[in-house]
C-alpha cells in the first residue's frame, strides 16, 4: 500500500491511498492523518480510488483518523470508494457516519 499526501495550502489535504488497506497496512493511514493534523491540515479527504480491498482494521483506522481530525477542529471525508469498500461500509453500517463522496472534488466542496 502507498499513501501520497497533498496539502492544498488552505488547511485542507488530500491523502491518496493505493493498494490493500488492511490489518497490515492500516496503521500507516492513521500515521498519515496524524501527520496531516500536525501540519495544520486537519480537514482531510481520503481518496480511496486506488484501494482494491479494505478490511475492518482499515475501516478502524479511517475512524481513528476521523476522530483525530475532529479533535483538532477538522474533519475527514472519504471519496471515490470502489465496490468492495462500499459493500464493507454498508455491511458495517459505517456509511451512516462515513458518507462516501463520489469524487475528491465533491468531498472538498464545503470542507
Amino acid at each position, binding site marked *: 500500500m502507498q499513501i501520497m499526501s497533498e496539502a492544498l495550502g488552505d488547511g485542507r489535504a488530500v491523502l491518496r491511498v493505493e493498494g490493500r488497506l488492511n490489518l*497490515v497496512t492500516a496503521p500507516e493511514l492513521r500515521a498519515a492523518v496524524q501527520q496531516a493534523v500536525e501540519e495544520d491540515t486537519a480537514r482531510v479527504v481520503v481518496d480511496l480510488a486506488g484501494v482494491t480491498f479494505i*478490511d*475492518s*482494521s482499515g475501516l478502524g483506522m479511517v475512524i481513528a483518523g476521523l476522530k483525530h481530525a475532529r479533535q483538532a477542529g477538522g474533519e475527514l471525508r472519504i471519496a471515490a470508494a470502489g465496490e468492495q469498500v462500499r459493500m464493507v461500509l454498508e455491511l458495517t453500517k459505517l456509511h451512516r457516519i462515513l458518507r462516501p463522496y463520489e469524487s475528491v472534488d465533491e468531498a472538498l466542496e464545503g470542507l
Partner: protein
Amino acid sequence: MQCFEAPAQPDCLDELHAALDRLWREAPDVQEPARMRFSTAVSEVLGNVVVHGRTGEGAIATVRVSLKAEPGALRAELLDDGIALAPGAAVTELPEDDLAESGRGLALARAALDELHYVRDGGNRWELVIRR
C-alpha cells in the same frame, strides 16, 4: 480448491489474497459480488486468527486455510492449533459505539456470509459458506 498453511502472522493475509486470485482463475463463473463477499469474510476471520493465534506455550499458531468453489457454494475452512477463543471473544455483533476503532471483524464476516461456524475440537475450526 486452494489450500495453504502458514504461521498466523500478518504476512499470511498476503498469502490469502494470492490463494483467492488462484481460486477465481480456477472458477471463472463465480460472480463479482460473491467474490467480494467471500474475500472480505475470509480475510476478516483470518485476521482474527492472526490477532489471537497463540499456542498454549505462547508460540505463534499455525493456520491452515482451504478455499473451495463448489457448484452450489463457496466454502472456506480455517484450522489453527492455537488456544481456544475466550468465551465471548467470537463476537458477531457490531459495536454499540459507532466510532469504535475495532471489534467489527466477525460481525462483518457474518454479514457477508450465509453461514459462519466456529468449532473447538483440539484446535480452532472456522467454517464459512456463501450459497451461490
